[in-house]
């Protein structure tokens, strides 16, 4: 997969929220860069757009997690429920 193809695949995967496909596309993109393929402004722009979409996906997911966290707190008046949002693992 060329650098442009991988960048386009990453963008498409992010658009549809398929993180597994995004992981594969980013791996292909990384390989293409490592092979010495020169990037184009289009590749850069596609990457920026992918990052923006990914940030939006994280925001949306964060909102959903927060909402669920709040619901859980509302039904656990005596204590803190286990947290599933520690991104550091």
């Amino acid at each position, binding site marked *: 997969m060329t650098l442009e193809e991988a960048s386009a695949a*990453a963008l498409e995967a992010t658009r549809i929220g398929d*993180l597994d496909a*995004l*992981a594969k596309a*980013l791996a292909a*993109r*990384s390989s293409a*860069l490592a092979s010495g393929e*020169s*990037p*184009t*402004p289009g*590749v*850069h722009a596609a*990457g*920026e757009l*992918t*990052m923006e979409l*990914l*940030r939006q*996906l*994280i*925001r949306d*997911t*964060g*909102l*959903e*997690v*927060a*909402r*669920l*966290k*709040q*619901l*859980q*707190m*509302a*039904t*656990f*008046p005596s204590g*803190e*429920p286990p*947290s*599933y*949002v*520690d*991104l*550091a*693992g």
Partner: protein
Amino acid sequence: MSISPLTVTGVSQFSSDLQSIMDRAVKIAQLPIQALQNRDGDALQQKSLLSGLSAAVSGLADSLESLGQTAQNRALSASSSDSSVVTASSSGATSAGVYTINSVTSIASAASERSSISYADSASTPVGTTGAFRLVVGGDNFDFTLANNSLVGLRDKINALGAGVTASILTTGDGNYISISANATGQKALELRDDPTGANTNLLTATNQGSNLVFHLNGIQVTQSRNLVNSVVPGLTFTVQATSNTAVKLTLASDSNALSSALSNFAQGFNALRGQLNAQTGSAAGLLSGNPLVTQLSGQLRQLASHRASSGSIKSLAELGITFDSKGTMSFDPKALNGFTSEQLSDGFAFLDNSSTGLGAFASGLRQFSNPIGGLIKLEQDGLDRVDSAIQKQLRILTDRVTVMQRGLALKLQQADSLLAALESQQSVVKASLQGLSVVLYGKQQG
């Protein structure tokens, strides 16, 4: 309940912004849940308010019934001209009257005898010749045989017969005696026959066979076994304390103090409910504001306050000294009853009694609200219990769902953050590469 903020530790450059997003989201998302909890809290508080309302309604109904009963009985109370001889009380009398006890010849007392002879040892000296006995109590005979032919055995056996007497042992310097006393007053022969089918000897004295109450009421002789008399004059109960040759008057007459007390209790009950209803109306109304029960009960109080009789000299509460202020609070002035003629008092009783046209009849209407089994307030409380249960169930279901969904979303969040970090790294490489290309092609960096 406050919501603690989520702690987010991501690896992308974007992760620091995520914390503020999450904090805002918690605050926003709290609103609908808080509303759900508030609704549950409101339901429980409404139930509590309804309990207070029910107690106030029940209290007013009680005071109305008591007032109606007092009026029904024409507030009659009994008195005696000589309470050292006779004490009297009203027990539901419905008409006034004066009764004369011309004389009390005898008052009732319980029969009580002892053995004619003493016995040296209460536990071992034989009492009877054969051990067979007959206890005579009035017209009743109780035959028995002692296994333990002694005073102790005899006492225990008699007390186990259920003959309406109590046996005990008297210990003196001369020896031990059996004492037998009737449990109730009244003239009654007491005998203890030794060997009833043989020698048949009475072992007891015959000095105190009890006595009946004997008196003359309005010239008629009355004899009975008890000193409490409650079956001669309807609604009048009296107790004879002593014999007397002097006449004693028993009077049943209307007592305005009893009526005043009942009206005062009614006013207190009315105001207790009025206060609770006032707290649920107007600009500072409580959680029962707009509740149909509040409206209906307010209507009941209005009807009660404006109740009018169609005939008689007493047609309204105002004529009995009851007034209302601007908030509907009732006041009662007992002085209004002073100087009432017997006709006014009689019409007042008719206005207040428990008949279908009397004020007391409102009690049954109020009971429909306060009945703890199927009253309107109880039904409303049951509905609130169901609301509470439904909300609690809803929250439990949500909790179960949330736990599962939160795990999946947290994993997705973590994966997205890792990918963003990787993409940020790639873009740095791409950007550096493009800038290097611009220097080569144009001798300077582009944008």
